[in-house]
Each structure stands twice: as structure tokens, then as C-alpha cells.
């Protein structure tokens, strides 16, 4: 059982929270405002309230706060702390047992019904939280609602909370042995060192060929195609210039050498990729990978 599941079980065990009273009794001015806002011109709501309004009566108001024993609030806090910081409502199923009459004083109770996850969703990995609320007039249950939200960790490439300046990117150190590579990326070329003596391809490069001893390194321009040999999904800690999580792939190029780069996509070993170039600034262009359809 995960910590989240343990917390969910603990909160569910508390059962229903204490009844929370509606701010006002069921009243005509609020009914009229609601009908106007919704655009409902049904003439029948003069003695009774529209059933779909039930949740309105017990809303906490503009500056209202959840009560401490509110199970949904407690579960939100647990998930916030676990990094599932975003929320979207997915289901709201209401059952009305009867019409509510003017002057009736409502209260509502809520319990935590179910927490399932982690699920992979289009929005990101998240947990579905389901609560059950009951509205009461005195001790008569008048309406019920099953309410479900998805609390999720935004998927990769979310709206940037704060833009990381390019200046924060970790820059390579460049010297005489490696400048051909970075000159290449600036020109949109992925260059692989090739020995001027024996033709050995080599990456990372160096000044002296380990095969023949020549010190005449040349290069060829790679097609920029290869397969993922291995990969890492980096979550912690933060990396300057990157938004976690992100993927770094070790790619075996078709020419036969391996090279690291960030990968934009869902990775798997053996997946075909192609190079893309991202200009950081005038001086630096980084090679990275993206999926490539096999042909």
C-alpha cells in the first residue's frame, strides 16, 4: 500500500464529516439569480427551487474555506504534498429525492468514497478521488452527489511556471579537439570524428586515434538517424535549463557510434530516432532526439 493509499484509507475511515449548514435558507432571490445566470426561463420555480441548484445552497461563499474535517480538502492536501498539484473535475452525478421548498434550511455531509491511482492520463499521472455528499433537511436526505476529481501531476512540458532562462543551461566546455562538433551543431550538422589515417569513427572524440595513432582527425556528417540504446527519465533533482521530468537517451547512430541527448517523446529501447537541433544562443546549438517513423 502506498503512502497515498494509506492516507486515503485513514480519511475514508473517518466517514462523514460534520454537517455543514447552508448560509441561507432556500430563498427566491437566489433562485432568480441562478435562473438568470443559467438562462433557464422555466416559470415554475416560485415555490420550489430548481433541483440542480442543490450544491449552490451549501457553497462556502467567495472567501469561504473548507472545514478541517472535509474529506475532499484533506485528500487534496495529501496529493498536493505528493506532487499531484493540479486538479480537474471529471464526474458529478446528482440524485434528487424531492423538490426543495422556500424557507427550508439545508445542511450537507461528505465522505471519501474512493481514491484510485496512480493512473496515466492525457493530462499527466494522477489519482481519481471520489466523494459522496448528502444534503439534509433535518434528518431527511433530500439529495445526493457522487463527485470525482482527477488530481494530477502536469505532464511534461506544462505551462512553464517560470521560464528558465537559456543562460541557465549547462554549457559544454569546448577545446581544439571538440570544436568541430559544436561548430557542426551551429550549422545544423551532426558531426562524427573520423580518423584521417585509418578512418575510425569515434565519439566522444579525441586528438589521437587509438587504433592507428594518427593525429589528423577529420569528421563525417551523420545522417542523424539511430536507435535508443538506453535512456533515463530524470525526475530529481532539478537540472539547470530543464523542466523535470525529462528524458535523456543514449542513441546508437546508424554510423555506429553512441551519443547522448535529450529525447522528446515516450522512450523505449530500440526506438528509432532522428536528431533535432535547438539553438540556445549564437554560440551554442544543442543536438537532441525525437521519434522517427521507420521507413
Amino acid at each position, binding site marked *: 500500500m502506498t503512502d497515498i493509499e494509506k492516507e486515503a484509507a485513514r480519511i475514508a475511515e473517518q466517514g462523514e464529516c460534520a454537517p455543514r449548514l447552508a448560509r441561507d435558507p432556500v430563498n427566491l432571490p437566489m433562485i432568480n439569480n441562478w435562473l438568470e445566470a443559467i438562462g433557464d426561463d422555466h416559470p415554475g420555480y416560485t415555490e420550489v427551487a430548481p433541483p440542480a441548484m442543490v450544491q449552490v445552497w451549501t457553497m462556502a461563499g467567495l472567501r469561504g474555506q473548507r472545514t478541517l474535517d472535509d474529506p475532499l480538502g484533506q485528500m487534496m492536501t495529501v496529493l498536493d504534498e505528493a506532487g499531484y498539484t493540479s486538479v480537474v473535475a471529471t464526474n458529478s452525478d446528482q440524485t434528487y429525492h424531492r423538490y426543495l421548498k422556500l424557507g427550508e434550511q439545508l445542511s450537507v455531509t461528505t465522505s471519501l468514497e474512493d481514491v484510485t491511482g496512480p493512473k496515466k492520463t492525457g493530462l499527466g499521472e494522477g489519482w481519481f478521488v471520489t466523494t459522496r455528499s448528502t444534503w439534509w433537511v433535518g434528518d431527511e436526505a433530500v439529495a445526493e452527489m457522487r463527485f470525482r476529481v482527477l488530481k494530477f501531476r502536469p505532464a511534461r512540458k506544462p505551462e512553464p511556471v517560470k521560464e528558465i532562462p537559456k543562460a541557465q543551461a549547462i554549457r559544454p*566546455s569546448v577545446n581544439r579537439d571538440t570544436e568541430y562538433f559544436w561548430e557542426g551543431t551551429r550549422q545544423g550538422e551532426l558531426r562524427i570524428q573520423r580518423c584521417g589515417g585509418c578512418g575510425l569513427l569515434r565519439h566522444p572524440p579525441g586528438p589521437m586515434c587509438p587504433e592507428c595513432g594518427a593525429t589528423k582527425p577529420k569528421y563525417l556528417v551523420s545522417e542523424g538517424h539511430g536507435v535508443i540504446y*538506453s535512456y*533515463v*527519465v530524470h525526475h530529481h533533482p532539478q537540472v539547470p535549463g530543464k523542466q523535470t521530468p525529462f528524458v535523456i537517451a543514449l542513441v546508437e547512430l546508424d554510423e555506429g*557510434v553512441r551519443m547522448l*541527448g535529450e529525447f522528446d517523446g515516450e522512450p523505449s529501447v530500440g526506438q528509432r530516432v532522428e536528431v533535432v537541433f535547438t539553438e540556445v544562443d549564437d554560440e551554442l546549438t544543442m543536438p537532441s532526439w525525437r521519434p522517427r517513423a521507420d521507413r
Partner: protein
Amino acid sequence: MNAAIVGIGATDFSKDSGRSELQLAAEAVRAALEDAGLEPSDVDGLVSFTMDTNAEIAVARELGIPELTFFSRVHYGGGAACATVQQAAMAVETGAARVVVCYRAFNERSGHRFGQVQTAAAANIDNSWSYPMGLGTPAAMVAMFARRYMHEYGATSEDFGRIAVIDRKHAATNPRAWFHNRPITLDDHQSSRWIAEPLRLLDCCQESDGGVAIVVTSRDRAKDLRQKPAHVKAATQGSGVDQFTMTSYYRDDLTRLPEMGVVARGLWEKSGIGPDDVDVAVLYDHFTPFVLVQLEELGFCGRGEAKDFVASGALELDGKLPLNPHGGQLGEAYLHGMNGIAEGVRQIRGTAVNQVGGVEHVLVTAGTGVPTSGLVLGQG
């Protein structure tokens, strides 16, 4: 070899030592000398890691060591651990020094944390093929090997987790361990958060403040000293073909640690023993996957078979190859492998808290993924 470990010493292991790294080094060296029954004036050699911030002369000043005839540093992070003893043993054998203390001390948790991204490290040309691409932490660098190992041999995250469970089990009964009384289950491991997939939080060793020191002298001198000596049967370093620091990704095979293979060959050859003769294995465990690869590289099981070897219970205290009885770096403390050497000495002396019965030989390894080193310690 004509060398023996005659003293071990350490500070407390913590997350915030509250004192300077030099103080930690000096305290550890003093404790090791007291353990050996030697005086600072007996010391004429000091060895440490190139990564250590404490200069040999600074340590000598604090201890009141008057003269040094031998001082040396070993490179490549945790790969240096057992090589400090090799340096000391060679110094003793050649007469360069008579009593050499190896030390490592740092505020690795409260000060400079290795687990964070070291932007400045990208200034190294080798690192320029990894750091700018976002691969900038030891965990992520090991994860790249681990993913390929899983792919080729079908190992799973649970197979890695079993190493963490064993280490934490052993640490739970070691009062000096940070995780004393805090064992974990495989479920705990499986529900711990991702750090760098496929590595979870509990695949990664802790970060620690502290210091450890090891006193080495000749076998002859050892006879007159306070403790039962742990003889250095073999001490070797290893670097493999196309070697990089943490990112040897350009070799044919990513599922091996060839540099540890070099160490293994040297250790078995020089000590005259083999894997079957090892009674306790203190294997470097900064990240769990490399413990599996080491088991294969050192010859305790075949390639790709470590997951089954581990699952068989072989690494338990009463198993075929008790692993890290002190709790390792996952459980006791991360002291760059030096606390593992101290545990090896205690197992030879018979004074460990989780003592294995009838120990003749202990194998100790140093940092993995980097040029590394190893030791065989023995009774006679």
C-alpha cells in the same frame, strides 16, 4: 602483501556534523591511531582522495604529526577507497613510510552534495558530452546502465530493491548506522519515488557527513600492536577499455563493469583465493544496480544471473555470501567506501555488530562506474 590494517577510526555519521571537514578528518585519524595503540608521532605517511578537501599537511598539523615521508592522493571519487590502502601498503613495502594513515572526511550532506547537479563539472571536456544534455547526477548516470541491464537480462526494479532491503536490514541492527532500527520492505522500495528512472529513491544511497581513517603498517610492526591485524592479502586498482568517469557508455557492452573485472582478476591472482573463498563481501553500494553487476564481474555468479543469486538469499548474514553486514552506504553511511573497509577489518577481528562466523577472508570494493579498486583482507 607485507602490510596490515592495524587501526580503524571514525566520527559519528550524521546529516549535519556541525564542524569543519578538517575537524572530522582529524577526529577520525586520532580515533584510528588510538584504536591501533599508536601515537601521531609514529605516523610518517598520509593518503587520501583527490576529492578530499583536507590537505595532508593540514591533517598532520592538527594531529601533531611532525614529519611525513609519504603523501599521496587517489583520483576518481569513491573509486579511490581501497586504493588508498593500496598506496599505503606499497609505501610500507617499499620503505617509503612505516605507518600510513588513509583518511576521508567530508560534510557531504550539510555542505557540498554530490547528488546535486554540479554545473561547474561541465567544464571538464569529458563531461561536456553528458552534462549539457541534462545528464548531470550520479543517479542518472547509473540509471543509464541500469536500463540497459534490465533490457538485456530481464532484471526488474524489484531485483534492485532487494539490495536496498538487505542493506537496510543489516543497518537496522547496527547502532552506528544512520538507518539503525529502520529496516524497509520491498514494498517500501517499490513505492518510493522516482529519482532517475529506472532508479527509485531507495536505490540511491544516502548522503552523509563524517570521517573514516585506516591505519596501515607492516606485518612485523602489526604483531606488537593493540589489535588483531587485518592482513592486506591483495589490493588493486582497475581501469577498463575506453574508460570514462560514470559515463563509459561507448563500450560494446553496457551491462558490465570492466574496470571491476580488472580489479577482480588482480585480487584473485595476488591473494591466491577465489570467489568461493570469500566469507563476507563489502560491495560498494551507492546505487543498487551496480551491486548486481559487481556480483557478476567478481565471479560470484554468471552474467545476468545476479538477480537470481540475490533472490536466493545468498546475501543474508547466514547466506553463501553475506553482503555489507554494517548496512553499506545505503544503510550505515555514505563515506565514499571507507566505512566499508573499516567493516571489513571488524569482520576479520571478529568485533562487528553483525559478525559473521568463521571469517577468513573479506572482499571490499570501491566506487563503481568509475576507475576503481578493491581489497582482500585476511586473517593470516
